[in-house]
């Protein structure tokens, strides 16, 4: 199951790199985000999986598709990068992946982590383990988020308000002259 989700995520993530159609990129992003949600479910984080599906897949992705529809004169218009730029970016990404993979293979996790964490995926290995069912996790989650992380929670709420007002202000319809190239100084 992990390999299925991992293959889905990696394949769609790299498909985003290699396609230049913005609508296809959005669809591949949908697949990648859904794969991440599946991984969260696999890791016994049911609440996170649900939040990922609702907020990311249901909210952010719709927002992106709205942006695509509002900003492309014809759907499917492709903006291709300059060839050497595209090649350089892809090569740089692959090199980054290779270097990080090497670092990860040759790195040793702390002994206690690798010995204790060898229990692998909780749902598959120990049938739940420390977290007993979804309800308990959600309850504990609420206690943590409104206890230890209350300040962060409130700041996030204020941030969302600011973002809402700011985005509405920025995206309002104005009657500016539509001069291509903007105003030159």
């Amino acid at each position, binding site marked *: 199951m992990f390999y299925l989700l*991992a293959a889905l995520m990696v394949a769609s*993530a790299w498909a985003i790199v290699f396609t230049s159609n913005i609508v296809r*990129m959005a669809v591949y992003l949908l697949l990648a985000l859904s794969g*991440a949600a599946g991984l969260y479910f696999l890791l016994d984080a049911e609440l996170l999986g649900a939040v990922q599906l609702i907020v990311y897949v249901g909210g952010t992705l719709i927002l992106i598709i709205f942006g695509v529809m509002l*900003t492309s004169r014809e759907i499917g218009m492709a*903006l291709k990068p300059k060839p050497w*730029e595209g090649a350089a970016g892809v090569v740089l990404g692959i090199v980054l992946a290779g270097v990080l993979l090497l670092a990860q293979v040759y790195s040793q996790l702390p002994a206690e982590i690798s010995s204790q964490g*060898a229990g692998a995926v909780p749902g598959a290995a120990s049938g739940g383990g420390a977290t007993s069912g979804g309800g308990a996790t959600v309850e504990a989650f609420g206690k943590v988020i409104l206890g230890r992380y209350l300040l962060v929670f409130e700041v996030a709420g204020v941030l969302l308000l600011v*973002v809402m007002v700011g985005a509405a202000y920025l995206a309002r319809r104005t009657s500016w002259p539509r001069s291509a190239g903007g105003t030159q100084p």
Partner: protein
Amino acid sequence: MNSFLQIGLGHFVALSLLVLAAGVATVLTKRNAIGILIGVELILNAAGINLVAFNALAWPTSAEAGAAVSAAAGALGQPALDGMVFTIFLIVLAAAEAAVALAIFLNFYNNFNSIDVEKANAMRG
């Protein structure tokens, strides 16, 4: 490290860094501003996978260790959910960032009649 077939922390780290590299390559190669935003979303997702995997797997999950730790955590009243809490805030931040970025892109499109980031050079000296 674990054997190859047993899914462990290393597998999740490897997956997350592959997705991270794809996000970086997307950000570097796209000329469409929304494509760059999609790359940023990929990078944030890679970070989220890492956070959740470390929270779920680097925390002891075997029976006796789990009991001991959850007893200790229960004494403090804080179960080990820190990574997942951070992932929630990460999702919130990603949503907020996407909203603001798209508003900026709309403004950009209204001004320049294009979504090509190469055209955003009005401030070039």
